[in-house]
């Protein structure tokens, strides 16, 4: 089935997210779409899928114009989509999620789940997935959740499959599997639209590449195009992706975790007796696929988890069991994984967010009084120092773009006297410019003699910043390796293959 978009334009208020976009996907083609954050890729796909309505333009399926105003229109036109933010009901089982929207009923209106269960098993077998139809989705790792989305599209025989950043949360091995699956689908005649930021993947699998910048198509190139060329087409200037890392002396251990165990509310150990340390002037990256305990470990370092056993020594002082407040003020800066949920109070102004941790300390507070003047003045300073771009520091933080939000978090956390910086997925969802900024700040902290613990699922980021890399798998640290490890070795470790290196 072929899909053609003609002159699709979409505006949000005065902002044009899609500007007369033309695109053609041939039957059995893998068509990659590249573009910066906010370029308008998801918007375009949501229009194709009927979640958004285009201001103008038309959609043709097999050369015939179709009217897509609802997702159900897209579904019946044979268009399936795996969304950037998963569209699964967390409390449902896999089978229930698959059935949803396509229910068949038996006697007394009883829902037929069995058919779906069989179908899931069948598709899983065909493509070598391991998915238990009766598992509750929220208990599954993200990688599996994504497979559920793909299985759903396959079961309902999508002729055109849209994959919006499917590889962002996958291990290299899982990514390879996905690419394999895509090729198999292509062989069966399925057309695929593939959105990703990872140029290597594009070059490996795509038949055709379209590049979008600020809502416009700026190029249609072949997969033979070099990575550098692709990147500069995306951004509109030459990009230098690898940050500068100077070699320097690493100090003595400043934070030491001993037999650290973290349990979830059900009592299961999600972090199991891990041991590691980070030294002054060193970046320790904790790599691993999402769902292997890194999030909990990061939170445990400031006692944000409820059930922690073992010891955390900061500068030889035990902080395990201390309050969050005491942990932070003992000298840990913490950049949480989700800036929206845990990092910022959206309805507060930038200035107010900058003192979330220090609001009851001098100079921001005088007794129980807030010193509004000082708060504003300090906020102005921070905004300048950290390049927070906003009309005014009184703006609500929710009106900022992701990159600027993250800068607010970083500015706040680094304005205390800090010995260790714990950063959890600090660049997730950020655009290239912001990523550069964050990377520079992290390295600056390292160079200033702080210990940095970087939790990241991005291999490139880990490799670029880390001095040492700890790899987590199923709650345990499988190994701590040197930063000169290869991508492949790291990928294998993250997938749980304990390739003990001789050097360790």
């Amino acid at each position, binding site marked *: 089935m072929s899909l053609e978009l003609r002159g699709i334009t979409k505006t949000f208020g005065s902002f044009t997210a899609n500007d007369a976009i033309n695109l053609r996907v041939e039957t059995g083609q893998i068509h990659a779409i590249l573009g910066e954050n906010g370029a308008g890729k998801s918007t375009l796909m*949501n229009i194709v*899928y009927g*979640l*958004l309505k285009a201001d103008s333009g038309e959609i043709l399926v097999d050369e015939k114009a179709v009217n897509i105003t*609802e*997702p*159900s229109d897209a*579904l019946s036109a044979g268009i399936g*989509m795996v*969304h950037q933010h*998963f*569209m*699964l*009901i*967390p*409390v*449902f089982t896999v089978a*229930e999620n698959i*059935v*949803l*929207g*396509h*229910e068949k*009923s038996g006697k*007394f*209106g*009883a*829902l037929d789940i069995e058919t779906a269960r069989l179908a899931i098993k069948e598709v899983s077998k065909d493509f070598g997935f391991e998915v238990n139809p009766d598992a509750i989705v929220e208990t599954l790792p993200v990688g599996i959740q994504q497979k559920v989305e793909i299985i759903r599209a396959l079961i309902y025989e999508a002729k055109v499959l849209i994959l919006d950043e499917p590889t962002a949360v996958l291990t290299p091995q899982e990514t390879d599997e996905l690419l394999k699956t895509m090729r198999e689908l292509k062989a069966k005649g399925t057309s695929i639209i593939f959105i990703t930021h990872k140029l290597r993947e594009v070059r490996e699998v795509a038949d055709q590449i379209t590049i979008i910048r600020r809502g416009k198509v700026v190029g249609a190139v072949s997969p033979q195009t070099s990575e550098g060329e692709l990147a500069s087409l995306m951004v509109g200037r030459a990009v230098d992706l690898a940050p500068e890392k100077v070699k320097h002396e690493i100090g003595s251990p400043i934070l030491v975790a001993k037999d650290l*165990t973290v*349990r*979830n*509310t*059900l*009592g*299961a150990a999600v972090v199991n007796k891990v041991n590691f340390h980070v030294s002054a002037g060193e970046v320790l990256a904790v790599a691993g696929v999402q769902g292997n305990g890194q999030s909990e470990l990061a939170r445990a370092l400031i006692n944000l988890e*409820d*059930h922690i*056993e073992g010891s955390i020594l900061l500068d030889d002082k035990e902080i395990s069991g201390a309050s969050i407040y005491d942990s932070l003020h003992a000298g840990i800066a913490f950049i949480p994984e989700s800036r929206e949920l845990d990092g910022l109070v959206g309805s507060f102004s930038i200035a107010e967010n900058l003192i979330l941790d220090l609001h009851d300390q001098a100079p921001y507070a005088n007794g129980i009084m807030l010193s509004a003047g000082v708060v504003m003045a300090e906020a102005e300073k921070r905004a300048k120092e950290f390049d927070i771009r906003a009309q005014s520091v009184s703006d609500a933080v929710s009106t900022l773009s992701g990159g600027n939000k993250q800068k607010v978090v970083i500015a706040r956390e680094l304005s205390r006297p800090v010995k260790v910086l714990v950063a959890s997925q600090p660049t997730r969802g950020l655009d290239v410019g912001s990523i550069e900024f964050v990377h520079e700040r992290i390295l600056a902290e390292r160079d200033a003699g702080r210990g940095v613990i970087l939790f990241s699922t991005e291999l490139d980021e880990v490799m670029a910043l880390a001095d040492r890399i700890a790899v987590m798998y199923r709650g345990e640290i499988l190994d701590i390796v040197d930063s000169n490890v290869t991508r492949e070795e790291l990928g294998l470790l993250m997938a749980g293959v304990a390739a003990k290196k001789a050097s360790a």
Partner: protein
Amino acid sequence: MSEIRSNVEKRRFRGVIVITGLSLFSLLYFGFLSPGKAKTTFGFVLNNEWVLIKEWIIASATGSKIFSGISLVASLLAILAYRKRIQVIVPVGVASFGILMSFITWAASGKFIPLTGLLQGALLLAVPLIFGSMSGLICERSGVINIAIEGQLLASAFVSGVVASLTHKTVWGLIAAPIAGAAISFLLATFAIKFSVDQVILGFVLNVLVIGLTDFLYKKLLVPYQNTWNTAPTFNKIELPILSKIPILGPIFFSQSIVVYIMFAIVASITYALFKTKWGLRTRAIGEHPTAADTVGIDVNKLRFKNVMIAGLVAGVGGAYYTVGSVGAFGKEMTAGAGFIALAALIFGKWSPIGAVFAALLFGFADNLQSTLTIIGVSIPSEFMLMVPYIATIIAVTGLVGRVRAPAADGIPYLRGGSH
């Protein structure tokens, strides 16, 4: 074992310890330390059941000892189960039952406790609460907070009373009530879904509106023209053949007014429909993650609208219980806050139909036990006895239930491609 336990487990552990302590206490206090040789009589017969179970007469102290003993054994089993990390709910349930019975045996020393009647009364007191919480359940499972249960109950009680009075037919009252409930729902749905009004405000406002309107009309119409407007007849009890003659169960479940049977049917259908049918799957989906439901082709707001209307119908039948179902004439603000207790039961029951029914029954039981004890005479001030159901709810909520999680999208208007 030095293994650290999770929060849930800690609470479970606390619960097990408390139960064991209570068992011991009741064994000592009710069983051994209470003087006297008085006997407690338990009655089981209410009507003319098939088998007239003989009254069970037991020396209070002995009875208390037996029940506390059962509860102590169950508590110990619970400890064992806990250590082996298996479900403790059954032994804890048995232990609680034992403690309760031990207490009742002690409190009713020298007196007569009609057990069947106690349970029947508990059920009756819970009837409007159950209807109300089912209405809340359907709304909130679809993502619309329903604080207007009180208003739904009151409006439909009013309408069913008036209609039954004017037509002299209970049936018409029963038919009109759901329509009134749905009318309130229509306002709730329209403002919440179409105009995205905050649902908490909306619910409160609708309650005030209904109270104001019914009070106003009551004075303007029902009082001056009482003989035509407010003389609703009530349904006769329907004794289901055979079933109503089953000892204990018969009088409780099968010798009730039609409204109670409708309630059984509604609870059963909602439980079934919510978890086993297409409608239920979709309803739960739009309450948890409306965007996801939208992407698979479900019209979220349409289904929400429909469900809020269904909820109004359900609450409406509950409203009819007040007039044609039990009392007859409409009384000013006769729902007396039941809508709020129903709301509490819904939250307490963790938004599950069975949970809400149990919460409502617990409330009804505590309330009826309280009045039964005052009837046979206890020396606790009546005001404190009247507090019992509320205190019991607080204890249950703080001690057993703890943190609850509402459907994730509950209360959030759904706007496609909107800001959230």
